[in-house]
């Protein structure tokens, strides 16, 4: 079965897989997590603001994004981002942004909908009395949110946010459909060039498994530590 398993093709392509591929995967994961949490928190605040137009807009955005497969969203933005760029900059024709920029935009906006739901649960986990107390002290809405509610919400939800980041890390493999050289894209390019599908896909699975496994192990440990302090 594994008699003609070619370890050499893996060794030979290691620099390409990790230097070209994994760098992009990790950059996309980090950027989309940071951007997604910021935008997601804004969406959650809009949804809980009690201002009907803001709440409706945020709810609609979150529900639509969560109803549609990530792959379809990737295709949407791949074609839509040039037009958005044209609209923002006022250029005469759609701006060619390429798959890299569009994948960064896509993952940030898509994951924001999922982070928004997590942050909403986090904000709602704060006792109402704390908001009242902050207001009684004369704090404005932004001060209440920035100093009282969000730090605690963020901390309560940290394990869930990190778990979502691990899912996001796995999801970045879907940029394969835009022929981007992320880790999976690199593995698949070598696999097809050298006709070594078995070796490359098994190795890719192993790498994804090890990273996700240890990351979720760390999240579980963090969860236990936070649980004791609270």
């Amino acid at each position, binding site marked *: *079965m*594994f008699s003609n398993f070619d370890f050499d093709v893996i060794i030979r392509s290691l620099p390409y897989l990790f230097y070209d591929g994994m760098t992009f995967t990790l950059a996309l994961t980090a950027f989309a997590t940071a951007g997604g949490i910021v935008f997601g928190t804004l969406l959650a605040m809009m949804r809980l603001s009690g201002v009907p137009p803001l709440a409706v807009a945020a709810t609609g955005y979150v529900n*639509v994004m969560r*109803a*549609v*497969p*990530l*792959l*379809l969203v990737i*295709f*949407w933005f791949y*074609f*839509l981002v040039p*037009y958005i760029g*044209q*609209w923002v900059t006022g250029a005469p*024709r*759609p701006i060619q942004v390429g798959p890299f920029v569009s994948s960064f935009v896509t993952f940030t906006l898509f994951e924001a909908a*999922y982070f928004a*739901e*997590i942050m909403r*649960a986090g904000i709602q986990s704060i006792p109402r009395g704390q908001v009242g107390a902050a207001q009684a002290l004369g704090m404005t809405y932004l001060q209440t949110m920035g100093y009282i509610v969000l730090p605690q919400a963020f901390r309560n*939800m940290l394990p*869930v*946010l990190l*778990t*979502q980041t*691990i*899912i996001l890390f*796995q*999801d970045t*493999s*879907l940029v*394969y*459909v835009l022929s981007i050289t992320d880790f*999976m894209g690199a593995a*698949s390019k070598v*696999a097809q060039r050298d006709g070594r*599908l*078995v070796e490359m*896909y*098994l190795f*890719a*699975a192993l790498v*994804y*498994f090890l990273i*996700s*496994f240890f990351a*979720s192990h760390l999240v579980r440990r963090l969860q236990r530590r936070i649980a004791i302090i609270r």
Partner: protein
Amino acid sequence: MNYNWNWGIFFETSPDGVHTYLTTLLMGTGWTLATALTAWCLALLLGSVVGVIRTTSSPWMVRLGNAYVELFRNIPLLVQMFLWYFVLPEVLPPAMGDWLKQLPDASFYTAVIALGFYTSARVAEQVRAGIMSLARGQRFAALALGLTTPQAYIYVLLPMAYRIILPPLTSEFLNIIKNSSVALTIGLMELTARARAMQEFTFQVFEAFTAATIIYIVINIIVTFGMRWIERRAAVPGLIGAAAPVAGH
């Protein structure tokens, strides 16, 4: 925005010469639903077995169940699809591998297997959580009445557990519908793939994707309302049906 809108495109004939583009999209919807539903049956079956195994008192069985869940949760779905589709026929004995490769609708069967196993790990987590949430007394009472362990699971523990975990199972079901779009990478012509094909043939990008988006949203709404109805009817009296937030897609 200099983009030529043409909503009439849906009623023009697609390159297959027989169907309109609208029909091809609906055929794609059929494949999406067929894939998701078949895979869901597999996921429920496997997930229940693995979930039950993880609540037994045998440490080896629990470890085996945990390993199963970790394996299928920590590898991206796309990679799993490729393993089933490209790698499995190569590592099997040549005769079996050739048979697999020549199977008609191979991408459909592969997608069902891949999605089924991938989702079963998530279902197993829920089933385990559901069984663990039951009072210990229920198991003891069932055994004291003379039921064997399998009988206790089938007649007492599992029916209660399913009723408790129905809301998270609903979101897993919605996920499996969305995740079935990943099967386009192995050539399954489901909804997203049809929208993509329509965009490639007609250059009417936004019409094609709008239609697909609307179909996904409609499916989502129907499933959500249907499951809410079932959830209300199946709710266990006396329990507060609040689910904690979990990460997921």
